[in-house]
């Protein structure tokens, strides 16, 4: 075992990249849950985004178009969930599970011709002299545009929820849909848009895994990241900046266990690979005592006749 092979600067740089898929998906889900909808289909939308983004990036040669396609794919799949829960008023837990099972199958079907191909690379942004700064340069200024987009997204979601009318209406719908309806807000329409936003974010998160993190396509490659993102929203008490913090924490754990595997620590690989899931459980236990932050109407079905 040789821990000195783990370079802390590279670890921190890789941590930001490892956190991005979780960050994107969790930010999307946060908006969905603030609108009062619990979409357990994040894993399904991510994996569909992963293959849509991968396939389109390979076909067009442009990773950016790939990411746009991934967002579109995730949003379209989430429309199915919106239809089930908002129009036919189906149970949200069951519908979310259905979305995940369906997304896993559909992505495997779409991805058949793409196994073993290398996607086009998305170049890192060139920050010029900023990247030369010791320590900070390689950690902060050496990444691809999507990573910065993720951080910007958190800021945008935070500002929108806190300072704008749209954010206020969204929160009203999530806290008490009957009151929001009585005020004349279109509950179903607002929720559907929120669900689509969540789908688009999850799709991009998935594509980040298949286009940048791995970069390759394999069936079921999201391996539970969507579920970790769901846990992260609870962890963050439905607050955007805490999502960022949580994502970096999980990214750090994921990256650290990968580095430990590489360093040949005496712990078997399988037990290291378990750690992100186990830590998610531990964090959930610690934080589940406080449920006061949850949106009031979370997971409840809305029908105007109630």
């Amino acid at each position, binding site marked *: 075992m040789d821990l000195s092979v783990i370079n802390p600067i590279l670890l921190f740089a890789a941590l930001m990249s490892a956190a991005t898929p979780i960050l994107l998906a969790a930010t999307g889900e946060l908006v969905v849950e603030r609108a009062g909808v619990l979409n357990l289909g994040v894993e399904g939308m991510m994996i569909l985004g992963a293959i849509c983004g991968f396939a389109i990036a390979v076909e067009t040669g442009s990773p950016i178009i790939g990411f746009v396609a991934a967002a579109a794919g995730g949003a379209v799949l989430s429309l199915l969930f919106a239809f089930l829960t908002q129009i036919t008023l189906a149970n949200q837990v069951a519908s979310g599970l259905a979305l995940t*099972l369906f997304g896993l199958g559909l992505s495997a079907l779409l991805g058949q011709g793409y196994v073993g191909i290398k996607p086009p690379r998305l170049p890192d942004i060139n920050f010029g002299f900023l990247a030369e700064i010791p320590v900070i340069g390689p950690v902060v200024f050496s990444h691809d545009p999507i990573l910065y987009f993720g951080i910007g997204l958190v800021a945008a979601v935070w500002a929108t929820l806190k300072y704008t009318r749209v954010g206020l209406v969204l929160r009203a719908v999530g806290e008490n849909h009957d009151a929001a309806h009585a005020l004349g807000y279109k509950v179903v329409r607002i929720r559907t848009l929120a669900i689509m936003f969540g789908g688009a974010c999850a799709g991009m998160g998935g594509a980040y895994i298949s286009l940048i993190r791995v970069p390759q396509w394999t069936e079921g490659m999201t391996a539970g990241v969507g579920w970790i993102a769901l846990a992260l929203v609870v962890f963050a008490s439905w607050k955007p900046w805490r999502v960022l913090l949580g994502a970096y924490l999980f990214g750090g754990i994921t990256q650290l266990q990968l580095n430990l595997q590489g360093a040949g620590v005496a712990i078997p690989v399988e037990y290291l690979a378990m750690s992100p899931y186990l830590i998610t459980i531990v964090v959930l236990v610690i934080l589940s005592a406080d449920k006061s932050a949850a949106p009031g109407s979370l997971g409840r079905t809305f029908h105007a006749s109630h």
Partner: protein
Amino acid sequence: MIALEKRPEPSRAFSYLTPVLAVIATFFFGGLLFAALGKDPVTSILTIFWEPLFGEFSFYYRPQLLIKGAPLVLIAIGLSLGFKAGIWNIGAEGQYIMGALFGAGAGLAFYPSENVLIFPFMVLAGAFGGWLWAMIPAFLKVKFGTNEILVSLMLVYVAEQFLASMSLGLLKNPEGFGFPGSRNLQQYASAHNAEIIAGSGMHWGVVAALIAVIFAYVLLARHRLGFAVRVTGEAPRAARFAGVNPNRLILFCLGTSGLLAGLAGLFEVSGPAGQVSIDFNVGYGFTAIIVAFLGRLHPIGIVLAGLLMALTYIGGDIAQSQLGLPAAAIQVFQGMLLFFLLALDMFTNYRLRFGRSEAA
């Protein structure tokens, strides 16, 4: 303008009709999917649903119906109890793996001695493994209020890693020339879950599934605990007044579903699968969720739904080898079924009203 109007009471007719309609809709859209993949839709559907039952080789495929259906029914029965009460165990796949590992480990510990008591001991160990794995989310939910959906699901990934570690390490066949995977339990008479009547597909897992169905039916229809399950799902507040202890119910529902999933894993690994290997599990724990919903969370419905799902697995295999239909297409097909079921379920609780909309 079409509006939805809540029915005063859920429609009985629609609650029976929806699964049938969902299957028909899935046939139709599944056919479109197969056509989009360049296969003849009618031939594909017939290959999946007709060939295994009445085709030339049905004598081979019919027993498979029991072999594939038994674990699905066994797991789904357990899940349905929780789902009825609003307790969501979606980590059955993990409990299934742990049941198989505990059971196979218990049997292999005695290798190569032969004794009739080894198999019953394995059954107990398998049930215990599944139960134990499900008690983790149950305990955390009762003690700390942790979300059981996320915890039970996280534990699936933990169980998969554990399975990999076991089949490459502790349980690896010492005479296996370094290949991953345990000894073949089919070649170890005391631990083999053999067919009770040769060639019928009837193994001990099928017997266990039938017992579970009867047990669940009696429980829900006649027992106080079944009443507690139903009333908690339909009216949680009323349940409190009726003296239902929610914590005990959580422990019971998660524990029972884990136990049954563990049994399913043990019967699979000691019978049809034969050995512990990295990928002996094929997602029964997740498909069972579809089975539970398709069967309307009712024991008899689950038997029918389990057989139908088993049929899609068997027919899917045939279509894969004969028509080159990708395995993932069957997965999509199964997912579609759940979608249509959930969507059409609207008609059980609501009815459509046509006419001009009026300000309420």
